[in-house]
């Protein structure tokens, strides 16, 4: 072998490169990891850091220019009744959207993971993913039309004789409005629709990882299906629900387009950020508002961890 290779033509450059990388796996690892780490570290974390820094500056009320000296004054702007109301509204909507998404996604994911055959599963995958293939704005506008006062949904409800209950629901303070399209209910419906795939897929993946033999073992040991669900299936799917809720919760916290197009005129966090960095050109305050979702997510994740949501990982 060695004599044969000695007499043969010298190995090509590519061959020698392969050998170098094969012998030094660490070098290969570095080559593979440096680009994504640069992206994550410098561009992503860097911009996040510069955002954080911005939030500790302030704007001179008179000139409208940013004053580059560290201060906590900007953060004081978060602690007035209006701002706290926005934070409360955004966070509670995000929580409600997450709960509804989980409630809708779980049975769907359960069917996909446990009962659907290969064909049915493919159909369900496409059905869940299909909305993600079309333009986000188009879908939100479509909902705006569906939920409008003269829209399809109101028409259907009217023909079902459900006008009175709808009007009654719409008079509810805080979540009601002139029509579904201009109420918090409408905002929530659209949020649930838009983020649902992000809840279905992780739950489905978690449920798929529960071997059938575990369910059989539980029933073999005397557990009725209800108990098997509560003691085996649910605990093992919690990491999936937690992963999905991270998506739905954080995406709702940060979104500014849906509440802008569908819902009452009362703003969400994202809209405030958009306003302050744009028309109001108060970048420090926009940055301070942008920090809020990060803090809420940090609290959310640590609470989930403490409750054992990731124990079964």
């Amino acid at each position, binding site marked *: 072998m060695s004599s044969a290779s000695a007499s043969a033509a010298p190995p090509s450059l590519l061959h020698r490169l392969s050998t170098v990388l094969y012998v030094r796996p660490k070098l290969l690892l570095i080559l593979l990891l440096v680009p994504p780490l640069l992206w994550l570290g410098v561009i992503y974390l860097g911009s996040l850091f510069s955002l954080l820094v911005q939030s500790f500056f302030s704007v001179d009320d008179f000139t409208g220019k940013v004053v580059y000296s560290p201060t906590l004054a900007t953060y004081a702007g978060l602690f007035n009744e209006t701002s706290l109301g926005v934070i409360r509204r955004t966070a509670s909507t995000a929580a409600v959207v997450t709960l509804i998404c989980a409630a809708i996604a779980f049975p769907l994911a359960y069917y996909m993971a446990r009962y659907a055959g290969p064909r049915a599963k493919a159909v369900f995958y496409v059905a869940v993913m299909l909305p993600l293939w079309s333009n986000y704005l188009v879908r939100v506008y479509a909902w705006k039309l569906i939920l409008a006062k003269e829209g399809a949904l109101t028409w259907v409800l009217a023909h079902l004789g459900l006008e009175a209950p709808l009007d009654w629901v719409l008079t509810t303070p805080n979540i009601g409005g002139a029509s579904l399209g201009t109420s918090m209910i409408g905002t929530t419906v659209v949020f649930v629709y838009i983020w649902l795939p992000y809840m279905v897929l992780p739950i489905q993946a978690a449920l798929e990882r529960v*071997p059938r*033999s*575990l369910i*059989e*073992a*539980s*029933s*073999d*040991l*005397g*557990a*009725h299906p209800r*108990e098997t669900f509560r*003691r*085996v299936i649910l*605990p*093992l799917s919690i990491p999936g629900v937690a992963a999905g809720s991270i998506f739905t919760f954080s995406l709702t916290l940060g979104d500014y387009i849906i509440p802008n197009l569908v819902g009452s005129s009362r703003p969400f966090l994202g809209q405030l950020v958009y306003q302050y960095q744009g028309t109001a050109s108060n970048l420090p305050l926009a940055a301070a508002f942008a920090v809020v979702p990060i803090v809420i997510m940090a609290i959310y994740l640590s609470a989930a961890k403490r409750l054992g949501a990731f*124990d*079964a990982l």
Partner: protein
Amino acid sequence: MANGESIAVSFRNVSRHYGAVKAVDDVSFDIKDGEFFAMLGPSGSGKTTCLRLIAGFEQPTGGAVAIHGQDVTGIPPYDRDVNTVFQDYALFPHMTVLENVGYGLMIRKVPKAERQQRAEEMLGMVALSGFGGRKPSQLSGGQRQRVALARALVNRPSVLLLDEPLGALDLKLREQMQVELKAIQRRVGITFIYVTHDQGEALSMSDRVAVFNHGRIEQMASPAELYERPKTAFVAGFVGISNLIDGALAERLTGSAQPVSVRPEKIHLEPARVAAPADGQTVSGTISSILYLGANTRYLVALEGGGELTVLLQNRDTHFEPTQGDAVRLWWEARHLMRFAS
């Protein structure tokens, strides 16, 4: 313990068909109380389906399964007095070892103190005292297997089902567990129904063995009976080495072309020049390969006139050590020739 008369599990003309596939096809048998009963067969022979029919994970498409005289058709697993040790152990990964073992007791609302005490006791029996606080992922394969056994036995079922429980263990551990399983079965006196494709396992542990093939039972007998007097060529081949003789040679030995067989250790191997004893059956051949196995050596002998036989010789300090290509004479006592029902 077993009184030998009462029947733990009985199959009456049981079938389990999946469309055109007959996983189990018109099978009838009785398993006695306190028996160590093995279901042996190649994969897809229907043995595991039979086990799942007893556990209640499958329902028969024909016939009836009875446990202690009660027809269990339509009764779900959670209402049956049997427990299963799964092939992949099926331990709950989010529970500790103690919680796993106590699961069945918790479901049956046994008070916590008693539950823990019984679970600890059972862990002691499978030599895992002190492991109760660990998670299954922190255990070795052999330890998980013991936990699965303890989790099933703690419920004191009338029948314990074991689905290839030693399949994932290495040889040494498997042999050790065979001895332990047998000892545990004697101690608790519960009927063990053991599914395996390993003939050695089935022979070494069981009181009786049912050999499955194509959804049917080929033969049901004690291990010795099964080995010494297999009823069919399939059983002879699946339990032990087949050593099938057919064609002209079979005709010379028995007067008919029906295939016959002889166990490798029953065959004497001698130099060609030595005369065979008068009451033996003799064939000549050449050594075609030699497999040295330590305690014994396996010779493959190509027979004169076609076919070959395996001969197993113990490695005593003998005068005759044939080498490859040697002309040899094989002989065996006529009573060791096994004939099969056609």
